[in-house]
Structure formats: C-alpha cells, structure tokens
C-alpha cells in the first residue's frame, strides 16, 4: 500500500494527525504534511534551514549512540543553551566593579527564576568544557582525524581553546573572591612568559591588577568577541564535516 493512499480515517489518532499536519497554519510553515515518505523526509532535511546542516542520508553506524555519544552535538547544544541563558543574564548584569556583584546577588534573590538561570548557565559552561574534551577523545579514538579530516581536527583544537577562553572570561564576571583571584592566578600565568608575557598580561587585564578595566575587557570578550569567533569556527567545523563526506567511516 502506498503511504499516500491511506484508507479513510476514523480513529481519534487519525483525526488528530490530520488536524495537526493538514491545517493551514502548519502548511504555511512547513509547506507539506508530516514527511512520511523517504522522498519527503529527505526534502524535509534538505529544505529546512536548520536541518540542512545534516546530509539527507547517513551511514548506519553513525546513528548508533555509541559511535559519537552525541558529544559534538551536545557541545553545540550547550553552546546554544549558553547563548540563550546568557542573553537573559545580560538583562540584569552591569559590568562595573560597583554593581556586578550586587547585580548577581539581586539576580539570585529578587529575579524570578534568576537563580535557576544563573545555575543553568554555570553548569552548562562546566558541562561544555567536559563535552568538548570528551568529543576530542572520541574523535581521536575513532581515528576520525585522518585525511581528509586533518584540517577539521585543527578547527576543533581552535574550538577547544575558544571554549576554554569563553569559560575563563565568564569566571570573572560575578566579581566575587573566587572570580577575581582565579583570574589573577590565571593571568599571572600569562605574565610569566619570557619577554612578551608581561605586555600580554597588561593588555588582557588592562592594568597591573585585576580591576574595572579587566572586568569590562573580559565582559566584552565573553558576551560578543569569543562567542562570535566560536560561532564562526563552528560554522566552518560543520561545513567541513559535510564537505569531507560526513563522519569518518572504515574503508
């Protein structure tokens, strides 16, 4: 029986199906009903702006959870979640040494779901560092960096650095004792480099010690500079996966 030629439907489920997938609003958005033929399913992936990051077909071993453990996808998912929760946090946060700490306090106590939002942002940030590291390990142990994917591995290393920097710059923003001293320790490491270290540290911190200049620099990098770079490199990363013929498979 061809899938498109269904007999008349009477059950509740069938009527629900029609109500959801055949009304004018659904059609105006997706142009067709639920994609229930192989051809339509491929079209759904290929013509949808979000889904077309994917190929339309994929090797069967790559669908197994144990091949990728979803780690790259999870890193991306966490990046999106961090962007959303981060934008919400920005509504309440002013990057000044006089206000930053009290803003975070007020966010936790006065703003509805403020504490939850901050917690989510924090745990997702830690989680993303972990998933990116584990994603790197999965790519390594599946030998997926081999030609023609060498360059995508390098893009990945850049993404790893960007992830660490994103997390590091965010660490300063609550402006509590943990933040300022962790960043002091971290930036002092930069300063210890021969010749270029101290000038670099000075530029990063915007002075001799971590203060207002450091806060505004870290804030700007954290909310726009680094996310933009990460987004660009992720675009390249995903594009290259497609160009390199999908995920690596055994020859």
């Amino acid at each position, binding site marked *: 029986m061809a899938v498109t030629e269904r007999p008349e439907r009477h059950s509740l489920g069938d009527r629900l199906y029609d109500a959801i997938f055949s009304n004018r609003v659904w059609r105006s958005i997706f142009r067709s009903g639920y994609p229930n033929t192989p051809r339509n399913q491929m079209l759904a992936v290929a013509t949808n702006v979000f889904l077309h990051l*994917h190929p339309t077909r*994929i*090797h*069967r071993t790559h669908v197994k959870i144990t091949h990728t453990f979803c780690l790259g996808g999870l890193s991306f998912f966490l990046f999106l979640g961090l962007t959303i929760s981060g934008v919400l946090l920005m509504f309440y946060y002013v990057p000044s040494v006089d206000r930053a700490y009290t803003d975070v306090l007020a966010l936790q106590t006065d703003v509805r779901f403020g504490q939850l939002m901050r*917690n989510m942002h924090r745990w997702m940030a830690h989680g993303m560092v972990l998933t990116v590291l584990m994603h790197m390990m999965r790519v390594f142990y599946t030998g997926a960096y081999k*030609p023609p994917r*060498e360059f995508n591995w390098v893009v990945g290393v850049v993404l790893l650095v960007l992830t660490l920097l994103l997390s590091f710059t965010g660490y300063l923003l609550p402006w509590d*004792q943990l933040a300022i001293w962790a960043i002091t320790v971290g930036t002092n490491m930069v300063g*210890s*480099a021969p010749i270029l270290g101290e000038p670099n540290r000075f530029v990063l911190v915007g002075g001799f010690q971590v203060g207002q200049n450091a806060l505004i620099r870290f804030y700007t990098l954290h909310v726009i500079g680094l996310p933009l770079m990460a987004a660009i490199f992720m675009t390249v990363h995903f594009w290259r996966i497609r160009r390199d013929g999908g995920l690596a498979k055994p020859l």
Partner: protein
Amino acid sequence: MATARSTQMPASEAVRGRMRRQREEELLVWPDLVFVEFICAVVFTIMLVILSVLVNAVLLDQANPAVTPNPSKAPWYFLNLQELLLHMHPALAGVVVPTIALIALGAIPYFDNDHEGQGEWLSTPRAWPNVIVGAVVGVFGTLALIFFDASRHVDFYEWMLNGPHRVPTLPDGAPDPTYIHWPEALNWLRSLRSLQTQVAWPAWSTNVPFSEFIPAQLIGITDFEVHLNLPAILVEQIIPTTTMVGLPLLLSLVAAKVGLAKTRRDHMILQFSGFIATYVILTIIGTYFRGQGLVLTPYTIFSIE
C-alpha cells in the same frame, strides 16, 4: 562527453554494485538521526534543569583585592597548569607547555595520516593495550613525580624504618636521638628543589654574568644585564623539560622495542592516552589535593573562606 557520461552513470557493473551497497548501508537522517538528536536534547535539558534546581552556583563574598584567599586557585580546567607551576619555572608551566601541547595536538593528523583504524572505535590491532599502557604510565608516572617533589619518598623511608606513629621529637620537644632520618648524604634527593638548595654549588655558578658574553652594545643596547643562576636553571627548566620530553620518548622507544607499538597509530594512541591521563591526574591533584599554601594535602575538597 565520454567523461561526463562516466561520472553520471558508472559504466561497470562492479562500480554500480558498490554504490548500491553503499546506499543500503545508509539510513535517512529524518527520522533516524533527527529524532535521536531531539531526544538527546530533551534528556539533557531535563537533567540540566534538575541539576540547577538542586545545586546552586557558588557566589562568595564580593571581590576584595586586599584579601588573598589561601589557597588561590584558577578555574578547575587550568588547575593542571597551576599544578605544573609548582614544579618548574612559571614561564615553562604557564606558557611554553600549553602552547606546545596545543600545537602537538593540532599536528596529530599530519603525523598519523594513513587510513588505518579510521571511523571505528579503537579498531587497530594493539589499540587497547596501547591505551591501557599509556594511561597507566601517565597516571603512575605523574603521581611518582609529584610525590617525589613533595618528599613523600623521604616520609616513606622514615616511616618504614621507624615504624608508624613515631615522631622525630621527644614529648618535651627535644629531637629524639633514636629516630632514623633520611641519610644526610642523600639530602640532595629530598625533592627536585633540594638539588639546588642542598648541594654546595660553587659561588660563581649561581651568578654567571651572561650579558658579558653577548656583545649587545654592538646593536645599541647598553642596559642589557643578565646574571644566570645555573642551579636554578637546572632545577626549574632543564630537568623539567628533559623529564617532559624524555619520559614520553622513552615510553615510545620501549613500546616499540617490546612490540607494543608498531605503527604510527599505535604510537599516537600510546602518547595521546598518556597525555590525557597526565592531564586528568594533574587536574585532580590540583583540585582536591592542594590545600593551604598549595601544599600536597590528603583529600582537601577545595573551599575558600
């Protein structure tokens, strides 16, 4: 014309057969992948919400540049570098090592570039043995080095010879003459630093006028003055560098000799596993076992007042 035709429709039956088999190995992204991704996202969203409801992010007192907490620690993913910092020159630990590690990481595919073992978990022969050996050597090698630098071998020696519960002083506070100490002749082996402090280095070696050998005034630099402390350089730079380069090389050499690592992929797995193990151990030690003054302390869950 002939080439255009051959790219569109492969001439031989064998090629067409291969393409057909390839197709049969493939699934449709919708629904097989999209649904998995969707479920994954939902599950993780729920887990994150639960975690965030249960555990609050820390917020300590307002930043105060005048009060340095003890210990002061970097974010956890940099504690491995902070741990290295305790054992070598800061420039080496804080800049040179991470830079070289990242470059080496990025260079992996350019060294190991055949297709052996591609696209499958640890599918080459000897892959697992190399993972295990690399990880074990990484963990125990790193621990041994850290314990050595914290004089734990000295404690162990005295504990073995004196028995447990003995302290080197009598109840009235005077030194106990029967207590057996680490031999004085071996004092330079107490830790890495004692090689610098416990050896009678000649006076000249701690103050070598390096700048006098360099004709910097010829290029117009007149205030160039550098004095080298050779024992310090030995302890802070030469020995750590030799260790960090030498031990992995030695591992690969031995592995090649005994037939554990034969191909480049073998060596890559061995080294990468060793690197990850070292990275993890350094992070754990830096996070949980460094207390006040960053002294090696048993099980200090990091908390600052």
